[in-house]
């Protein structure tokens, strides 16, 4: 286990290094942020002065090395757009995205899982096809559309929920559903096929022969044995949710990392983009690692490392 973790940690560091190097150079190939900072009337002299103040006049490789140096010292740098340390900005935004992703995962899990089980148990019947149609609709609706529609219906017409922003649990409902819909569909489909797989196995047949009723069968046998694909999907969904948050947060004015990412890319706020991408990479790495560890807990046949 220990050597497994060490090995994975080393891999993670290599990945993170590759990610930040890529982001560092790609961003700098795509335009000069000083042009956005200065008003239209700025002269060439103003531009040069601004580049010098921000350190963009130095050779690229020098900028890169000093950036790596900062990273090693856990210094994420400073946003020259928001005039604040990047660590402070992330600290205020990350919990918001975590809340939203949590809400979305809850929606996806709490609805997707039972729906998947029901679809598996009723497979071949009309009801299963109806549910499948609904699931497909969830998966096909783009979030920028479903989000705006929800705002119009529940925020503007019915006035049940605040149309945008944060501050209470009610604010979390619509963004969570909008973000969760896609994952919900994925969960339902994966659960369905995992349960269908299990249903054909001998132990289910013998359990049924022993007279075990369906609810108990699902609870005691099916769910645990179908868990592995669901866990792997969760690891993937977490990175999906981070990506989906970009749109949902913009639509609902949710002050999380997604919105921050869009704004920072648009304004070439290098330090913030680098930090967000690095954070995203770590979240993905950790989610996958957690999934690997969970496998061995759920299914004792899975052993980690070479033993």
């Amino acid at each position, binding site marked *: 286990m220990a050597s497994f973790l060490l090995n994975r940690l080393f891999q993670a560091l290599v990945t993170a290094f590759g990610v930040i190097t890529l982001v560092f150079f790609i961003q700098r190939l795509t*335009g000069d942020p000083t042009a956005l900072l200065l008003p239209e009337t700025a002269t060439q002299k103003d531009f040069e002065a*601004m580049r010098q103040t921000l350190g963009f006049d130095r050779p690229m490789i020098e900028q890169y090395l000093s950036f790596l140096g900062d990273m090693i010292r856990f210094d994420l740098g400073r946003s020259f757009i928001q005039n*604040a340390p990047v660590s402070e900005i992330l600290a205020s935004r990350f919990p918001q995205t975590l809340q939203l992703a949590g809400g979305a995962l809850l929606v996806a899990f709490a609805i997707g899982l039972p729906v998947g089980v029901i679809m598996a148990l009723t497979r071949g019947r009309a009801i299963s096809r109806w549910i499948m149609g609904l699931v497909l609709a969830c998966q096909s609706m783009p979030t920028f559309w479903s989000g705006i529609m929800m705002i119009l219906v529940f925020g503007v017409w019915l006035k049940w929920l605040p149309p945008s922003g944060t501050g209470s649990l009610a604010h979390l409902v619509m963004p969570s559903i909008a973000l969760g819909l896609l994952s919900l569909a994925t969960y339902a489909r994966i659960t369905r096929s995992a349960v269908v797989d299990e249903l054909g196995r001998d132990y289910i047949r013998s359990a049924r022969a022993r007279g075990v009723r369906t609810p108990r069968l699902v609870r005691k046998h099916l769910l645990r044995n179908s868990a592995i694909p669901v866990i792997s999907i969760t690891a993937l969904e977490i990175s999906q949710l981070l990506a989906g948050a970009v749109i949902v947060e913009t639509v609902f004015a949710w002050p999380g990392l997604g919105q921050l990412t869009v704004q920072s890319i648009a304004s070439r706020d290098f330090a913030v983009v680098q930090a967000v991408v690095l954070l995203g990479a770590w979240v993905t790495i950790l989610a996958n690692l957690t999934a690997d560890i969970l496998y061995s807990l759920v299914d004792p046949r899975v052993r980690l490392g070479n033993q």
Partner: protein
Amino acid sequence: MKSTLKLLLASVALTTFAMPAFAKDMTVDLSGEPSSLDPQVQWNPDSYYVYRNIFDNLVTRDNEGKIVPQIATSWEQVSDTEMLMTLRDDVIFHDGQKMTAEDVVFSIKRITDPEFGSPQLGQFDQISDAEAVDEVTVKLTTDGPYPALLAQLVKLSVVPKHVVEEVGDDAFNAAPVGSGPYKFTDWNRGVSVTLTRNDDYWGDAGSIETAVFRAVPDAATRLADLQAGAADLVVGLDSDAATQLAGQDDVQLLSAPTERVAYLGMNLDKPPFNDPELRKAASMAIDTVGITEGLLGAGEVSVAQLASPAHFGYAEGIAPWEFDPEAAAEIVSAKADVAATPATFATAPVFDQRIVQALQQMLNDVGFNVSISVTDMPTYLDIVRSDPADNAELSFGRWSCACQDADGIAYPLLHSGSNWSRVNDPKLDELLDTARGSLDTQVRQDAYNQVHQIVRDNYYTLPMYQAAVLYGAASDLTFTPTANESLFLNRMTWSE
């Protein structure tokens, strides 16, 4: 399974019963959060919508656009390069300290210090020195005669020297202390900025007690907030949004012409637009009235010069562009091989793409060969500021100098010394220099009259209209939008 069901029920219950409280404070939806609340740092609408309420400026513009006293009660040009300003002696900063001439001098020196690196430096760097003559008098010295000085000082916010020096630039930006009608209360990063009325304000602090400025990036969401009553005032709407609001009793649309001038820029160094005849054809191909009334319809005013009625230096009597696509097609067909040279129309998403596409269509209809190239803003700025040889053939812009003086728009776009300009005409340079260097308003106006006529005669660039700004507001809010796109809370009132 039971716990899953419980969760499911809980989320259904939440959806059905959670009733949010809509507080009746003044809530303004901006398109983004302020980049900074330090008025001497960032320069964008989302920032100055907020900080112009926290700080006083040396002078300001009233709702009619006239420059009127604020901190400075009077001013006198004592020589070509020196101005004496007399200040109010009853201005108290929000921390209780009195404002003195030293604070004004400090503010000017801070923003003009290249080390400080203010993006606004270019608007103030002609001020070479500031000096406190006594408690209530400040002497400003400029590099040379600088006629736009007062117009620029409209934006010079006075910051308290003692606070900035004590807490440092970062802390000041995070919790600014000003002398304006509203005090900074709270900045919830990424969410909102809250201001509270300054009841000790020397002037009229207005009737709104608390104002919350929120960052709502999506225009459809801002609109929904307004319709749902979650916001009282929203910015950044376009005419499509206006159509949606039409016929609703509890909301109103407010609009005003701004000091932005929209124009079609042409590359005079490359075919097809290096040919004056073809530029003329382009001017005749474009239906500016169709664009302002058909597409926009927020009160835009057609202009055929790089200035608007909101600018000093606007020339009366410049003939509007002639819209005559048949005549344009004739000119083009006589020079078909040059006119068919592929022309790139560089643009970015911030510009209204409906207009860009309409322009492309109108030009292609008479025989040009225009294709649109959309890139994001930094790339676009790189392209349009590059050398003429690498530059795109066409670009669309909405220029603002935030000074309401023709110098701020005609000079950068027309003077050969500016890196935005594609024009190289010694006569124009001379006139622009004269207008920039004289304190005699008549001399300046005469020079601009000639500048606009030369541009019109040579089709150097195709100014189209004075852009307008659209706000959505609750119908019981009274607010007069101004050309400088400010949201002064103390000029807004609720009707009972």
